[in-house]
């Protein structure tokens, strides 16, 4: 049962990732990316990391994709505007894709099979309670730094995308 679910989710993830790249219309790409993110959240839920699955849906499918869709609408991109790359670039891109995948998989296929060495001890390590304690005990400094980073990103985004009056 879990096995079938995993393979279905993986197929959805990989297929929608491919369609994200191959769609001509950027809006279709964004929609397929939402599907991809939802299936990755499904993977997290399958791994029993419920909190991470929720945060992933909220941050990626919610915030980031809305930002991207609004940017696409702001730019008013049409399909006819886009000139596709020359055929030689596409061939090289495909060859690079196959090479990266082939070398990484063949390198990692040499590792010892991990299925036997895994033991499920049943310790609670990924509930919200435990994660919150870890986040605010060991990682409290990076946590605060993340707040500073997000503030800087907000200020920077406003500054960069503001209209420059002098050069207009």
């Amino acid at each position: 049962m879990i096995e079938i679910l995993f393979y279905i989710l993986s197929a959805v993830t990989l297929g929608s990732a491919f369609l994200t790249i191959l769609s001509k219309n950027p809006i279709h790409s964004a929609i397929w990316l939402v599907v991809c993110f939802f299936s990755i959240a499904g993977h997290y839920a399958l791994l029993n990391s419920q909190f991470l699955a929720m945060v992933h849906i909220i941050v990626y499918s919610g915030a980031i994709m809305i930002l991207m869709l609004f940017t696409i609408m702001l730019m008013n991109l049409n399909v006819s505007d886009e000139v596709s790359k020359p055929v030689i670039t596409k061939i090289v891109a495909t060859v690079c894709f196959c090479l990266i995948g082939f070398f990484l998989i063949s390198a990692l296929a040499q590792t010892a099979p991990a299925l036997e060495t895994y033991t499920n001890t049943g310790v609670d390590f990924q509930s919200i309670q435990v994660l919150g304690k870890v986040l605010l005990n060991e990682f409290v400094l990076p946590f605060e730094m993340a707040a500073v980073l997000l503030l800087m990103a907000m200020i920077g985004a406003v500054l960069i995308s503001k209209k420059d009056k002098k050069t207009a």
Partner: protein
Amino acid sequence: MEHVLQQIGIDQYIYLSIILFSIGAFGILYRRNAIVMFMSIEIMLNAANLLLVAFSNYHEDANGQVFVFFTMAVAAAEVAIGLAILVAIYRNIGSIDIDKLKNLKG
């Protein structure tokens, strides 16, 4: 209930992440639309996140998942800044085709 790693093993997750990462790299090389290239970067980040979560489950260690939270925060900041830069580029050039960004070429 049996854990998912007992049934399919960590290697399947490794292969899934590798293929997802390669798809992201493929998208960077294949498209010239800068927004779709951004989406490809997100796909690559998600491949890394997925592997971090899988290994965090494998070792039953919460640190991997905390790392994924920080990755998500950095990804959100990156997308906000990147899209702002794209909007600025679009205002100046009138297109987000990356092949048209060759003002620095002598």
